[in-house]
């Protein structure tokens, strides 16, 4: 095998260069991890039809028909067992005070726990539907709690907020609600 052509000198550095490239890739992955949120494919589409029974005695349940009554709504998917839902409660309270109708879907919860949660954290909801089997959550394309959907007056989902609404998100939510009015 004496006639094998000699590799050029730079080829000596190739493994090191490859290794450094690999390290850079790992670092990029470490410092900018992939987004693990799964956004719903229904944004821009009509709200799925559902009719949830009341989650609280003496209060109305949630029928999706109410969402197409000409006014924009917020639909909040939440649960008493969800810690971030406590974090967003003051923000929802503020939105409710501003006159925005907020409809709740309580996922896999009990009446007792839900009542305790609302007593502790305030109750911004017009209606709360009980999604005990989690089917409406799946129909919505929601993969966890809390999630908040901005629904326009025709019942079209225009925006999905994944995770708790923190004070810095209020502006964005109000903006989406305003857009939904048009």
């Amino acid at each position, binding site marked *: 095998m004496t006639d094998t052509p000699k590799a050029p000198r730079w080829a000596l550095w190739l493994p090191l260069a490859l290794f450094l490239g690999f390290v850079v890739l790992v670092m990029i992955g470490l410092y900018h991890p992939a987004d693990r949120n799964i*956004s719903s*494919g*229904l944004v821009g589409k009509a709200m799925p039809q559902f009719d949830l029974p009341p989650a609280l005695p003496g209060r109305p349940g949630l029928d999706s028909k109410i969402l197409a009554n000409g006014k924009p709504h917020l639909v909040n998917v939440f649960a008493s067992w969800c810690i971030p839902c406590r974090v967003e409660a003051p923000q929802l309270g503020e939105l409710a005070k501003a006159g925005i109708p907020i409809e709740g879907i309580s996922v*896999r919860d*009990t009446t007792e726990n839900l009542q305790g949660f609302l007593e502790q954290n305030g109750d911004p909801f017009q209606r709360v539907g009980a999604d*005990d*089997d*989690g089917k409406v959550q799946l129909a919505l*394309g929601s993969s966890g709690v809390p999630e908040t959907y901005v629904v326009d007056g025709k019942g079209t989902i225009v925006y999905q907020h994944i995770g708790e609404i923190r004070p810095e998100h209020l502006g964005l939510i109000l903006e989406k609600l305003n857009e939904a009015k048009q």
Partner: protein
Amino acid sequence: MKRVAFIALALVLVSPAAAQEEQSTAPYAYRQLDDAAKETKAQRLMESLRCLQCQGQSIADSDAPIAGSMRSLVRERIAAGEDPEAIRAWLIERYGDYVSYAPQFTTLTWPLFAVPAVLLLIAFLLLRRRFTRKPEDGQ
């Protein structure tokens, strides 16, 4: 020492403030379908659907409550005679390709399928050149 004992006692006495997530009340979250053939069909689909909460597991393996809801959804629809691929498509419409473990052939993923075929072809061509004796080498 007293303080340690106090903390230990506090840890034992204080119950967690947050309530537990309830299991799904959906009828087929933890129950198989009575029809064995349909259950097999459902099982096969469930093994290829991703749990949205514990994202490394299939809904057949996961004990997360949302996986229970998804299992029941799959079983109820299979029982109603729906095609497994239609159920998969319904979920993909909502959660994207991510929810399915069965690879989809799309404009984005076709290189994954094409590259192995191309590599095999190149390997075949290279090996053929190496193994075919050149005529001038012959005896």
